[in-house]
């Protein structure tokens, strides 16, 4: 590759050079190789099981249908699990954003001594592997009785329990990002409001939060995908298969309903669709969220 001359500014003027074509060939080839596992799954999902079991999976398709997708969706009652995810993810994202922006508001505007210590606690907590805390957390969830509030009567095996741990875990990261962001807003802004007699809550809700919209949008996108994709918390903290969010339910469904590889492929791809939609629609937000909070594991 050393034949390529560096220097982005010169690029517009120079015509297409052989080295540049070579680079495109390389990138296109690699990109295709990167998509290959997913395309393979799509290919398997589109073929009837009878055909693939006769001819083998590496063979020319006679028939491509969406039957596997509709079967996987209906047989396993996937809609129900998407519903479970919705009940968990929507409150988790909203509460995380609310709570972390409140902490960020406090540390960035009012208490500079506590600022670093508090953020350190939040950020470090967010970087811990989830398994470090799971044993006591699991016991704690079993011990907390909530008769009449959750279906299980406990924090264990309830959507509420999952929402709480998502909020507690993710708010560390969001508080860090938002506090950095809020510190870049001019101080005079809130100072003036305070002199005019605005309450702290109004300052937060009507002045600071609206200015943080871009950061909140980026974090909201990121959180939605992370929480949707979460597998571990529900595997341990939910015992009833019926109550699982879709990503974790996939594990059970694949044994129960998705009896052949074609159905497994269809089922797995179906669960990926919402994340893909969010990603393609909000790509900018997602990527900027990820890079501004690059500490996230």
């Amino acid at each position, binding site marked *: 590759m*050393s034949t*390529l001359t*560096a220097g982005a500014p010169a*690029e*517009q003027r120079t015509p297409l050079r052989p080295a540049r074509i070579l*680079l495109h060939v390389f*990138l296109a080839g*690699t990109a295709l190789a990167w*998509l290959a596992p*997913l395309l*393979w799954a799509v290919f*398997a999902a589109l073929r009837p099981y009878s055909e693939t079991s006769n001819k*083998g999976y590496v063979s020319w398709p006679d028939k491509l249908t969406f039957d596997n997708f509709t079967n996987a969706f209906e047989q396993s009652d996937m809609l129900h699990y998407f519903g479970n995810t919705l009940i968990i993810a929507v409150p988790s994202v909203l509460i995380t954003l609310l*709570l*972390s922006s409140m*902490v960020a508001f406090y540390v960035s505007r*009012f208490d500079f001594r506590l600022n*670093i210590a*508090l953020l*350190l606690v*939040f*950020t470090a*907590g*967010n970087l*811990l592997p989830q*398994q*470090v805390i799971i*044993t*006591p*957390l699991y016991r704690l969830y079993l011990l907390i009785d909530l008769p009449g509030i959750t279906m299980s009567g406990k924090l264990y095996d309830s959507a509420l329990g999952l929402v709480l741990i998502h909020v507690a875990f993710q708010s560390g990261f969001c508080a860090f990002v938002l506090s*950095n*962001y809020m510190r*870049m*807003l*001019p101080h005079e802004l809130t100072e003036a409001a305070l002199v005019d007699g605005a*309450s*702290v809550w109004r300052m*937060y809700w009507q002045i600071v939060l609206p*200015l943080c919209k*871009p950061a909140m*949008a980026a974090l909201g996108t990121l959180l939605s995908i992370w929480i949707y994709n*979460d*597998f*571990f918390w529900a595997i341990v903290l939910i015992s009833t298969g019926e109550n699982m969010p879709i*990503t974790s339910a*996939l*594990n059970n469904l694949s044994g129960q309903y998705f009896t052949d*590889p074609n159905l497994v*492929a269809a*089922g797995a791809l179906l*669960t990926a669709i919402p994340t893909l939609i969010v*990603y393609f629609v909000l790509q*900018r937000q997602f*990527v900027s969220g990820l*890079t*501004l*909070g*690059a*500490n*996230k594991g």
Partner: protein
Amino acid sequence: MTTDINTKSPEAAAMPPSGPAPVKRVPRGHKRLLTRRDRITLSFMAGVPTVLHVLLVWVTALASIALAFTSWDGIGFDSIKWVGLDNFKQLFTDNPQFWPAVEHNIIWFVVLILIPTPFGLFLAVQLDKNIRFSRVYQTAFFLPVVVSLAVTGFVWQLVYNPDTGLINSLIGANKPGHYIDWIGDPKLNLWAVLIAASWRHTGYMMILYLAGLKGVDPSLREASSLDGANEWQTFKNVIFPTLRPTNTVVLVVTIIEALRAFDLVFVFNKGAQGTELLSILITNNIIGESSRIGYGSAIAVVLLVISLAVIIPYLIATFRKERRA
């Protein structure tokens, strides 16, 4: 994490609309103007999230440490017995899965840092060249990061399945007698999972490095090429050194990813022989038949100590730099 990344990256939509507002330390904050009600509001705003976070994350982490020195069947607090270092002794000397798990976590890190990380950097450097279709390529490489690890596990199983999988079908190893069992064979399965993990990690690293590269001053590049340096020399002597903050982030992210590795292996084979990991041992101890709380906590403490040894120095360095800024 680093402010370097988010302040320099033009990608970041998340920049405050008002331009010139450097982080100036204001000595007193707004405190002196607060009414009583404001103070109560503020303590709620800071208090509620902190209590929730500390209770569910830090108190449980500390409880892991405390429980690691006890034996407890989980029924009633009276049955908690102090056993000193017994759990650790047993873990280090008596558990046939423990040392393999430690080894696999280390291999996981070494593979991620040696293969997908440099490759992600390489792709980022190529894509940063202002070329056509850059977005399309980026989307392809980044797609595996967006899809959940559970889905990734299922998709790769379709590639690895001994009977029906892509690889064995292509090389003719799907007939009885010729089977290559990518998922079951303990000599192969870790590497098979690591390929899937690297597939995902590359895109992640590419995005981090792309953001880092956007922050490199273009005049540096120009000066270097005017001096007659070729592309590799420019990269080695000019670009790479300025990527230092990104490299730190990448190193920490990769270590944390290696310690967190769980979903893929759990979907593949639940951590059967050959793919044991610390995270898997802890989880199996909880959902398994013979749950031993103290023992599981001892494994968690090992994981916690390793994690904090990485997290704390990194965060202290980051926050110190920020305070100076």
